[in-house]
């Protein structure tokens, strides 16, 4: 069982005579099977947090742990879904999903069964032999999610996964992800700048400040979702019209607007 723990993480970049503090003193604990979304203005370092959990980037001080271990590099126990999908263009849908299983030396029959299961789970049947460029953006992101899910990872790291999709596809994918989270709950760290998306999907929403990136507030959404029974509504627009949802959204927007104002004042 794996949670994610950021313990007093700082990340400093050195750019020609200037030192940029990207993240300052980030402490955040994501419990096992909890869904946490980070929102914040662009450039606040939210993607850097995810990259550290993935093992693509490392803290200048402090530590990042996933499960019992400090993160030392990328690995299939922490599957990443990228904003621009990062599918291998020369591989078919099946080959893309199969790569991680082949790397893990999963026996062929079992691997094929698992790929078939995940294709069905993500409604991708009939596209097995297609190449990524032959699919729509939404379909490509389904493949990327399937590629992550098939590894049965402890932790799922999603970096603005729906940011490159059009509005309608985006809503469908959000509903899909909620369905998936119910069938097969995982520890999820989800980066987005869409406030509604964060509230709709997450158990906790983390609001970050800009320059240097710090955690401003952590807003619990799960208690509201459970007491107001959002999960009984199938459609995202019905949930979004709930007064409790609107209240949370207003609050988060107010927090983000403070950041925006701060930035404008600093620049002028």
């Amino acid at each position, binding site marked *: 069982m794996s949670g994610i723990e950021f313990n007093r993480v700082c990340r400093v970049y050195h750019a020609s005579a200037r030192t940029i503090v990207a993240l300052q003193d980030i402490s955040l604990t994501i419990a096992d099977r909890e869904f946490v979304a980070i929102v914040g203005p662009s450039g606040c370092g939210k993607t850097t947090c995810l990259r550290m959990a*993935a093992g*693509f980037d490392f803290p200048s001080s402090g530590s990042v742990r996933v499960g019992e271990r400090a993160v030392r*590099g*990328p*690995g*299939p126990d*922490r*599957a*990443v879904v*990228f904003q*621009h999908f*990062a*599918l*291998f*263009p*020369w591989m078919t849908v099946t080959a893309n999903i199969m*790569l*991680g299983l*082949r*790397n*893990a030396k999963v026996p062929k029959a079992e691997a094929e069964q698992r790929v078939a299961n995940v294709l069905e789970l993500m409604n991708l049947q009939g596209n097995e032999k297609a*190449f*990524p*460029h032959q699919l729509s953006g939404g379909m490509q992101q389904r493949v990327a999610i399937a*590629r992550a899910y098939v*590894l049965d990872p402890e932790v799922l790291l999603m970096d603005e996964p729906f940011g490159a999709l059009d509005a309608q596809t985006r809503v469908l994918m959000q509903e899909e992800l909620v369905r998936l989270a119910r069938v097969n709950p995982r520890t999820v760290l989800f980066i987005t700048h869409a406030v509604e998306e964060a509230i709709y999907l997450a158990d906790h929403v983390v609001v970050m400040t800009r320059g240097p990136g710090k955690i401003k507030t952590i807003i619990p959404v799960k208690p509201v979702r459970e007491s107001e029974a959002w999960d009984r509504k199938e459609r995202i627009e019905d949930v979004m019209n709930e007064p409790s949802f609107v209240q949370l959204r207003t609050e988060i927007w107010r927090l983000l607007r403070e950041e925006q104002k701060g930035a404008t004042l600093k620049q002028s």
Partner: protein
Amino acid sequence: MRNRSLRLSRWTRVALGLFGLTIFFGIWGAGSITGLASSTFLPDPLSVIGRLLKLVDSPYAGHTLLEHLTASLFRYGAGLALAIVVGLPLGLLMGWFRLIDDIVTPMFDGLRFIAPLAWVPFAALWFGSSLGGPVLVIFTGAFPPVLIGAYRGARLIDPQLVEAARMLGTPHRRMLTEILLPDAVPSIVSGLRVAAGLGWQSLIGAELIVVSSGIGYMMVQAQAAVSTRTVMAGIIAVGLVGTAVDLLLRLGEGAVRRRFGVAGPSK
């Protein structure tokens, strides 16, 4: 980017190409037929073409033109194959492992500016003058573009694809063969086209000096016999074969780009 404001139909462009060739042969023909230049100094186009056709079935310098060309193409194929076998994996390794890049690059940069022909004496000395020597000379011509094509392809891969592959637990060997290699294919094919041209040029140079068969050898023998028409026929044969090889590779390049280039980052 070329100025494309002047849009011409395909046939107009073919006609323009023919027009250019006509001017070229016109000036050549006018120079020789009017007697402005003596026929030894500048043989006229028609007699050269006649000579070329005759060489196809009657032996000169021990072999017919086709036999000479076959001998040349055999050496050429061997040298090019060697350049690919060495240059392609080395280029990918340099693109993936920083250490190998740091070791090989200074040596490679020092050597690649030496013209292939400069190696001819040593190539013959070390590897013999029938196959080994000429193959080494072609190799020195064709190797750099093959290596650079593979290296550039591996270095210019979208970093996110590398991250995705690492996240999926891809081991180094598979990283090279299943991620970097297919991603680098368009760049490798471009390098191959350059390599094919340089290799063919280098071969003719090598054959002028060392061997006892091949199109270059035939031209040297003709030069010794002051048969300028034969030399000129050889030049045309070299040009035609070179063009044919490039045309084949260009067709292959198109097919490969359609298969591997789509949706990938443009390079």
